[in-house]
């Protein structure tokens, strides 16, 4: 029996591990990208993910249905996004303050709920059924690791295409860009900046909630407090680095996932490197890319600024 570092099973598990770690980042990163495009810096995304993780897990555990879990995860993210939209878009409160407040609040509430509900039983979900894509899933190594996953993985990948299309080919894309770059122009053109930003924040909430739900239900099969562990902040960075292109979020998310798998691969292979060093790799890579190519910032001009009509 072929075993160890070069066995198919191990390679498959590494790639699948990268996917498992990358999908929440991808979903949340895509969501963040939309609201950043529209000019809202959503720092609350970490909280939205955590809320989605809790809601998704609790529902999936209660009902036995992952799909209901995803629905609840999306709703969980949406609830926080509604608050964010109300406070930051409608009322124009400071996005940083509210974003951090939502994250702290979600940290606290989910931990409390977990304490009350699950801290004596630590329920775990059963094995996840995968959807094997005929044909593709038969490719050696890549097939089983990429094309025999839970359907949510394909939904996430598909949403990259949808967003690309939306940004390039629709009025929604134009509106988002205008809302972020020059909101007064959008307003003057007769489109409500507040509505556009509200929708984009709500979308972020849904995507972050789905990402969190994926992390809890499929990534871990369990909910534990603070389990997102900063993934939301990585998603923010990915969205900024991607400079408005969904495909770049995809690439970034999987590079992050892959570097985690790399850590495991090195260790299982008996290569003696401290985890701290390996953990630096993705961040180091980003810095090197930025130093080498010194890519100018192209964040939306009005990012983080509330829009109040007629104010100057």
């Amino acid at each position: 029996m072929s075993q160890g570092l070069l066995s198919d099973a191990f390679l498959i598990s590494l790639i699948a591990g990268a996917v498992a770690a990358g999908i929440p980042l991808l979903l949340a990163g895509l969501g963040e990208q939309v609201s950043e495009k529209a000019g809202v810096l959503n720092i609350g995304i970490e909280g939205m993910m955590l809320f989605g993780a809790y809601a998704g897990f609790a529902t999936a555990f209660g009902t036995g249905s992952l799909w209901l879990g995803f629905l609840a995860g999306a709703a969980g993210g949406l609830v926080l996004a509604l608050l964010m939209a109300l406070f930051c878009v409608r009322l124009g409160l400071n996005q940083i303050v509210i974003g951090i407040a939502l994250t702290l609040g979600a940290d606290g509430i989910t931990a409390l709920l977990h304490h009350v509900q699950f801290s004596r039983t630590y329920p775990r979900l059963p094995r996840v059924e995968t959807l094997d894509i005929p044909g593709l899933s038969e490719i050696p190594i890549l097939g089983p690791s990429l094309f025999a996953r839970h359907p949510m993985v394909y939904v996430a990948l598909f949403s990259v295409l949808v967003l690309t299309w939306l940004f390039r080919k629709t009025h929604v894309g134009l509106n988002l860009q205008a809302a972020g770059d020059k909101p007064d122009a959008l307003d003057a053109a007769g489109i409500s900046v507040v509505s556009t930003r509200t929708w984009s924040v709500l979308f972020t909430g849904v995507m972050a909630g789905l990402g969190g739900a994926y992390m809890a239900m499929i990534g871990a099969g369990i909910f534990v407090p603070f389990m997102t562990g900063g993934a939301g902040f990585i998603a923010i960075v990915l969205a900024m680095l991607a400079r408005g292109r969904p495909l770049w979020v995809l690439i970034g998310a999987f590079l992050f996932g892959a570097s985690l798998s790399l850590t495991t691969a090195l260790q299982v292979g008996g290569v003696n490197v401290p985890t701290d060093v390996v953990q630096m790799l993705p961040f180091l890579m980003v810095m090197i890319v930025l130093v080498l190519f010194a890519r100018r910032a192209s964040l939306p001009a009005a990012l983080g600024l509330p829009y109040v009509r007629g104010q100057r």
Partner: protein
Amino acid sequence: MTQAAMSQEERHHPVASAWRRWAVAVAAALLPIVLALGVGALILLALGADPGAFYYHIVKRGLLSWIGLQDTITRCAPLLLLGASLIVAFRAGLWNLGIDGQFLLAAVISAALAPVLVTVLPVWLVLPLVMVVAMAVGALWSLLPALLKAYHGVNEIVTTLMMSFLGISAANVLIKLPFDDPTTTVPQTATLATDDRLPRLFGSTINVGVAVGLAVILFIHWLMTRTAFGLRLRLVGANPRAAVHVGLPLGALMVAVFALSAGLAGLAGAVEILGVWGNVRADWNPAYGLMIIPLVFLARFNGIAVIGFVFFFAVLSIGGETASRKAGLPNYFILVLVALMLIFLALTEWLGQRRQMAARD
């Protein structure tokens, strides 16, 4: 009394109007707290705890008992310095989101240096020396983001966050490898003896760090609001193109801002280690950034207001732990309470702005 009558009266009684302004200010400060406590009380009731007792314990422990108050004040020190750090950066329009990494690296270097230096130099020299080195370490860690921003326009949110993650990992590597104290099995640096730490004030458990923090934040407030240098930095923040137009060296100023801001974050690390901890353990990361950033925004980058918010937060964190323990609740509830306070504080500020807008004529 109607609005008109009131303003009529104001014109004739300046004293009354001063009183009224005071009343409004006090109400504006208290309202969010009352609202947050109210909503928090509902959650406490839902959790089966007694809100009255809970809040009583927060205040009693965090503010009214002398041991508690000393701890509250001690906890303010690093937060004040980090607040000063952020005031510089934010007023200059630069998002230094890397203070956690700068803080931690400087803390580790301080912890590694101080126990060694005290064996060769007098303590009164070692402490300031280490603080200076810590500032340099913090500043150095911001150099790359600063240069990339100043001369290549690379977005500093991304670079400072990246450097922060890198700094946290690098700090751990330093602790586990070169600076590991061989006499303990736990990976941590050697410990600075309690007698060699920052002197304590008037026989209390409060160390000089908080005085340093207060002095620095007041100085920074003065620097940013009253000096030409501060105005130049604010100009960079408010309109960088105008800064170029009026002939300011934009790049150099940005690097200076980063150096100052990150240097103060480094100083916070040194003060925390030299004043309280004495050493750094692997994987230690208080992540003060997440807490201090909203406070600095709520204070609208005003140093004096930051002092108030920091103190308030310290009371909550010291008193909250006791209150949770006595109520048999997980400490997590304090997170919820802090979140509620932030939201209501932001809301009241918004209401205040609207009042100002409405009161125009």
